[in-house]
């Protein structure tokens, strides 16, 4: 319990420190310091057996461990990257950025460990708020537009999710049960809950948390926010906040699956997932802005998550593995994309060409990261996407599986039309070179992330394998 408390309190203390430290140079070092401490606690927590505490409100289960590992690792990489990045951006006061990142880490950690739907909702709402000033870091007309869309759509989404939670609570009142918003009791109640209210709660939470995840058609804020935010903020949005939205969806999924009447939920999830992948694939073709491209790729992978929940069975193992694979691969891509953006002072593929020559490390990372994310062996996303794909066939959904592969193929080709010129093209001759060069702290963190997903793809350590299978079993057992 102490460790779990520290998990949320240490980032908050870090935020306080970032607020107090007056020097713009020294302040960013708070980020890696807190990130390392956080990651240390995360590893300790994942090794220890834990039981629910505080009357079941706070409980780190296997699903939580998967998310916590992913968030901790990604944040650590972003934190080291931030130190050097903020040196490049001396002209900006970085107090708000450092504080926002740390408050967000605290809120994400709280979301992961909470088994009370109300607390989970609060934590997810806090992540949205704490990231809003960070999207606006560049202080121009484009970023204010992106921030407004992000803030408005995510706030409405999260409000709709709250209505879903109220419906769920009300369904217990209608059924004449002791009202509760705890995951455990609700799973026990599920078969007795009135179907109409439970369905309504599910749909509202799917739409609400779906807006936060960026599922189509609620994804419109995503390309703008991811495109205008700095690379490391984009990485946290794609690998941290989007996953928190997914976690919210997982919790209601666990309750709905326990109700026994699963057909409706499965079809909703499969339909929503396929639609998101399809929309993303369409917009990925002919996308000229490589940061917006990453946003659509995130829409695609969120769709994949939801699809996997709908398929069930072995796909759940794939989904849990993909939380780690997708989160870390997004970190590689966003951080490398940020470097390329700065090297060319543009994020358009017509201007930013030939990154491999200008910034060999970042260019190479962007290319290999792209291959990793789209499911090339031997990287981790290959293993997870393959599990989801094969589950579609073994669970008797061959049409869904075939459709999914087709769309992923279109998305892959669409992305390669953007990534290949950016990395391998002929650098423009008439443009001035910016002062940006790859440094160990800017190219190192994405390189380490890439190394991790490559190693995990080749060989999944036994403890991690057990955590992932336990998480999948938790999702499965709730049926």
């Amino acid at each position, binding site marked *: 319990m102490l460790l779990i408390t520290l998990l949320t309190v240490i980032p908050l203390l870090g935020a306080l420190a970032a607020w107090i430290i007056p020097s713009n140079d020294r302040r960013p070092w708070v980020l890696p310091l807190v990130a390392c401490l956080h990651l240390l606690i995360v590893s300790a927590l994942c090794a220890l057996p834990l039981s629910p505490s505080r009357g079941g409100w706070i409980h780190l289960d296997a699903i939580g461990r998967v998310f916590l590992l992913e968030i901790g690792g990604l944040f650590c990489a972003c934190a080291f990257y931030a130190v050097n990045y903020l040196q490049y951006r001396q002209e900006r006061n970085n107090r708000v950025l450092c504080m926002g990142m740390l408050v967000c880490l605290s809120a994400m950690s709280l979301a992961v460990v909470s088994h009370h739907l*109300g607390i989970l909702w609060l934590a997810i709402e806090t992540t949205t*708020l704490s990231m809003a000033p960070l999207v606006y870091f560049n202080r121009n007309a*484009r970023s204010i*537009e992106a921030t407004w869309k992000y*803030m408005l759509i995510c*706030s*409405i989404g999260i409000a709709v999710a709250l209505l879903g939670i*109220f419906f769920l609570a009300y369904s217990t*009142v209608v059924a004449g049960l002791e009202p509760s918003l705890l995951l455990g009791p609700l799973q026990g109640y599920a078969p007795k809950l009135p179907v*109409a209210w439970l369905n309504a709660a599910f749909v509202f939470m799917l739409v609400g948390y779906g807006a936060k995840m960026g599922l189509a058609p609620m994804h419109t804020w995503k390309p703008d926010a991811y495109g205008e935010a700095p690379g490391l903020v984009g990485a946290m949005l794609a690998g941290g906040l989007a996953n928190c939205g997914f976690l919210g969806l997982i919790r209601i999924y666990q309750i709905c699956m326990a109700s026994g009447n699963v057909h409706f939920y499965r079809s909703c999830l499969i339909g929503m997932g396929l639609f998101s992948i399809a929309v993303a694939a369409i917009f990925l073709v002919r996308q000229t802005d490589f940061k917006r491209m990453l946003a659509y790729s995130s829409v695609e992978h969120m769709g994949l998550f939801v699809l996997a929940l709908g398929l069930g069975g072995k796909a759940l193992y794939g989904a849990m593995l993909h939380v780690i694979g997708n989160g870390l691969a997004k970190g590689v891509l966003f951080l490398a994309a940020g470097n390329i953006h700065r090297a060319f002072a543009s994020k358009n593929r017509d201007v930013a060409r030939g990154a491999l020559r200008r910034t060999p490390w970042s260019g190479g990372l962007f290319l290999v990261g792209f291959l990793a994310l789209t499911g090339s062996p031997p990287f981790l996303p290959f293993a997870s996407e393959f599990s989801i794909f094969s589950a579609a066939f073994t669970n008797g959904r061959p049409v869904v599986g075939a459709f999914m592969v087709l769309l992923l193929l279109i998305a892959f080709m669409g992305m390669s039309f953007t990534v290949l010129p950016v990395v391998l093209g002929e650098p423009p001759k008439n443009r001035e070179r910016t002062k940006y060069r790859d440094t160990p702290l800017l190219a190192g963190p994405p390189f380490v992330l890439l190394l991790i997903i490559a190693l995990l793809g080749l060989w999944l350590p036994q403890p991690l394998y057990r955590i992932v299978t336990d998480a999948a079993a938790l999702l499965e057992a709730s049926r």
Partner: protein
Amino acid sequence: MNSAPDQLLVLVLLINILILGTHRTRVAIRAIATQGIVLGVLPLMIHSFHSHILIITLFVLLAKGVCIPWLLFGALKKVDFGEHMEPFLGYTGNIIAGALATVVAFAFAARLPLAPVHQGLLAVPAALATILIGFIALASRRKAIHQVIGYLLLENGIFIFGLLLTESMPLMVEAGALLDLIAGIFVMGIIIKQIGREFSSMDTSRMTALREVD
């Protein structure tokens, strides 16, 4: 429909229509503040007296009646909003849509499988109507600050539905939700000021730099 809580809920419904129909931002902010105060008083009248309920009332009055209107007026002060902008559908169209939404909410609520104690209560249709009108305001308004008011209507509607559950919701969650709402409005207020500076207007339909090129 003669009891005091029901009369207050009718007031809430009237304020909804007022907000849809007014073109003056200050009136809209005052209206949403009044609605917040009404909502703050409601838990006291619906539930039996309890310290938990009293604290919620105080929180709501402070948040929705004082803090949020103050933040919104603060955002207005920095922005020159002399120009006058018709919402999509126009004001008359908005009022008609609002009235229709209220009718639909009543018709729909009558068919919901409610708990026997809540049968015939005005709270459920009032919640649905306020949520729907919030969405109408969000979809039709172009000024950023009016979109925030639409969002607040949505939140108020959800709050009315939450009244049915006040006794089962933990205080921490309610208080936290209100705190998050205040923080959210605070952030939105800052963004509105920046929008006013960058675009010299709060018209969000001018924000078209970010879109897919074709």
